[in-house]
C-alpha cells in the first residue's frame, strides 16, 4: 500500500522553480534512496514534505496515508508520522536534550489524542533506545546538540526517530560529516528501525551510505525531476559512471 505519493510536484523558491513536476511513490515498509548531484532538488523535496516555510508549491500534490499532506501544518505532519532527520541538526542552548525529547514526544501524542507518557515510562524508553545507539546518559542532560560532535548529532536524530516511531523517515544527507565508524553506528540505528510498517527515504550524494542502509528502490534526481528509478544496483552503476549522463536526460 502506498504510504507516500508525490504527484507531479512543482515547487518554487522565490521566483525560481526548483522541482518541475516530480512524481514518487513509496509503499509501506520500503526504503527508497534518492541520489543526485548538488542542486538537483533533493533537499527541497525533503523540506517540502516536512513543510518547511519558504517553498511555494505551484502544482501537484503530496498524499500521505491517502491524506493531503500540503494541507497540514508542519507540526501536524510530525504528529501524523513524518520525520525528517536533518542534514545539519540545530543547536538549542539551555534546553536539555531530555527535556526536548519529552516535550516533543508529548506534543505529538497530545496532537493524536493520546495520553502523555508518564515520567518513569518515558525514562525507561529513552534509556533503552539511547543504550542501543551508544548514547551516554550525560549527553541527554546537555543542551540539544550543543557541543555535540557530528556523529553525536546524527545519533541524536536517530534517537528521536526511534522514540517518536514515525511511519515515514526522511534522512537528509545523513552521511555528511561522518567518519566511517560514526556512519556505521548511525546506520545500525536506522536499520534497527526497519519495519514492515515504516518507510524511509534516504537522500544522499554517495553510494557509500547505501552499503549500510540497503534500499529497495533507488531514484536518480536531476534538475528537479526523477530521471531514473531502479533497484539497489542502480546506485553502484552511478558510483561507477557518475551523474553526467543524467544531466542531459533531464
Amino acid at each position, binding site marked *: 500500500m502506498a504510504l507516500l505519493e508525490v504527484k507531479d510536484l512543482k515547487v518554487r523558491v522565490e521566483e525560481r522553480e526548483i522541482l518541475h513536476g516530480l512524481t514518487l511513490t513509496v509503499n509501506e515498509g520500503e526504503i527508497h534512496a534518492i541520489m543526485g548531484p548538488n542542486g538537483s532538488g533533493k533537499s527541497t523535496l525533503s523540506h517540502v514534505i*516536512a*513543510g*518547511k*516555510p519558504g517553498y511555494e508549491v505551484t502544482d501537484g500534490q503530496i498524499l500521505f496515508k491517502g491524506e493531503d499532506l500540503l494541507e497540514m*501544518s*508542519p*507540526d501536524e505532519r*510530525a*504528529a501524523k508520522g513524518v*520525520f*525528517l532527520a*536533518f542534514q545539519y*541538526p*540545530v*543547536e*538549542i*542552548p*539551555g*534546553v536539555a536534550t531530555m527535556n*526536548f525529547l519529552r*516535550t*516533543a*514526544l508529548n*506534543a*505529538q501524542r497530545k*496532537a493524536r489524542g493520546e495520553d502523555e507518557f508518564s515520567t518513569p515510562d518515558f525514562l525507561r524508553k529513552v534509556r533503552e533506545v539511547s543504550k542501543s545507539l551508544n548514547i551516554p546518559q550525560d549527553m541527554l542532560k546537555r*543542551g540539544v546538540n550543543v557541543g555535540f560532535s557530528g556523529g553525536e548529532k546524527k545519533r541524536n536524530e536517530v534517537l*528521536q526517530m526511534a522514540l*517518536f516511531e514515525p511511519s515515514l523517515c526522511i534522512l537528509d544527507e545523513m552521511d555528511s560529516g561522518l567518519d566511517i565508524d560514526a556512519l556505521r553506528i548511525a546506520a545500525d540505528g536506522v536499520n534497527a528501525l526497519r519495519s514492515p510498517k515504516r518507510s524511509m527515504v534516504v537522500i544522499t550524494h554517495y553510494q557509500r551510505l547505501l552499503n549500510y542502509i540497503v534500499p529497495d528502490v533507488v531514484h536518480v534526481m536531476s534538475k528537479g525531476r526523477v530521471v531514473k528509478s531502479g533497484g539497489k544496483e542502480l546506485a553502484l552503476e552511478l558510483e561507477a559512471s557518475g551523474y553526467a549522463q543524467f544531466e542531459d536526460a533531464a
Partner: protein
Amino acid sequence: MPAVQETVERVKRIDVDQYRYGFETLIESDKAPKGLSEDTVKFISQKKNEPDWMLQWRLEAYRRWLTMQEPTWARVDYPKIDFQDLYYYSAPKPKKTVTSLDEIDPEILKTYEKLGIPLREVAMLEGVEPKPGEEDPNKRKIAVDAVFDSVSVATTFKAELKKAGVIFMPISEAIREHPELVQKYLGSVVPTSDNFYATLNSAVFSDGSFVYVPPGVRCPMELSTYFRINERNTGQFERTLIIADKGAYVSYLEGCTAPQRDENQLHAAVVELVAHDDAEIKYSTVQNWYPGNSEGKGGIYNFVTKRGDCRGDRSKISWTQVETGSAITWKYPSCILRGDNSSGEFYSIAISNGFQQVDSGTKMIHLGKNTSSRIISKGIAAGKSQNTYRGLVTAHRKATGARNFTACDSLLIGDKCGAHTVPYIEAKNSSATFEHEATTSKISEDVLFYCIQRGLSQEEAVGLVVNGFVKDVLQQLPMEFAVEAQKLISISLEGSVG
C-alpha cells in the same frame, strides 16, 4: 495548596490568549480627591492614622517633589503624565480593621482567587488556627501579603512568623506598631530626595510590606506580596522595607497584575532592603502588569526604585526579576556594597512584546573592600517593542579588590523590535576587576523549524527556545516561582512570530 502552585495549575487551564489578569473587580472604594496637593498627602496620612513624624516626612518629600523634574534619560517615549489627573489613594470599602478573612469583601477574595492567590486556603490570619488535618506539613508554606489598590487586605501566616520573631506586616501597621524600626530604616536606602518618582512615592505611598528578621534568624518560609491595581485612574505607590539583621536570612517574592484598561495607569513603587553583617536577602519579582493592547493602547507605566544596602560586612543581596508586563518599565534594582566582603547579584529576564518599552538594569556600587557583584541580564524583544539594558558598575576609591562580572544577552524575535545595551563602568580603584560580556542574537528560523518538525507548535517552539535562553536566570528563582515564570514567558510571547 501554596499560592504559587495554585497559580501554576491555573495557568495550565487558562486558554492561552492575551493578558489573563485583565478583569476588573466591582467594589466600592474610598478615594482621595483627584489630584496632588498638601491636602492629598494629609488625607492619606490621616486615613492611615499615622503619627505626626510620618506626616512631616511625607510633606517634606512632597515639597521637594514640587521642585523636581521627571527624568528623561531613559530610552522610553510616552506622553506627559498629568499628575493632577490621578487619584493618589483608593481603599476598598468598608474601611475597618480586618481581623479575619471573613471580614474581607468577598469580591476582593474572588479577585485573588482569580489571580491564583487563594488567601482562604493558604491563609490563616492571626488567631485563625488551621483545622486539624487541613494542613499538609510537606507542602512549602508561603506567607502572603495582598495589596489591593492602595491597601493591604490580608497578610497570612502572621502568627507563625511571629513565633520565629519575624515581623511581616503592611507597612501602614508597622508605622504604628514598630515606629522605632520604621523611623530608623525608612528612607535610609532610597532617600526622599532620591529621584522624581521615589520622592513622589515618599509623599503619597499608601501601603506595602514591612519585613524585619531579627539577628541570627532564618525566616522559616518564603514571604510574598501580591500587588493588584484595580481602581481606574489610580496610581499605585507602594513602599516595601525589608531589614535582615545580623546573620539573618530572608527570601521575598513579589507578584504584580492589573486589569486591562484603555488608559495608562501609574505605578511608582519604592523598595528598600537593608542587610546587616552576614545577613542575606533574596528578592524575586515576577512583574506582569498589564502591558497594553496589541495597538499599544493602555498599560501600566512602571517607574520603580529598588535598592538594597549591603550595610554589614559579608552581607549579600540578590535581585532576581522576571519582567513581562507594563507598557513602560523604568527600573534598576541596585546594590550598595558598603560592607567589606559584601556581595550583590542581579539576575534579570526582561521580555517585551507589542509596543512595550523596557529600560531596565541595575547599579552595583562598590564601596567596601573585596566586594563582589554579578549581573546576568537576558533581554528578549518581540513585536514592535524596545528593550534596553542600562547598567552601572562603579568602584569607589577605597573599594580595594572589587570584582564584577556582567553578561548581557539579547534575543530578538522578528525584525521590528530593538535591543540596546548601555553599560556604564567606572573604576576609581586600580585593583578593581570588572568583566563585561554582551551578545545579541536573533531567534533562528532553522531552530524553530527543527522544533516544529518534532511536533511542537510555532508558539511552543518559541517558548522552548526562549526558556532555554533564560535558563541561567530562571534557575535563580525559588522553585515554585520558576515554574510559574516559565509559563508566563511562553504566554507573553504569544503572537510574537508569524
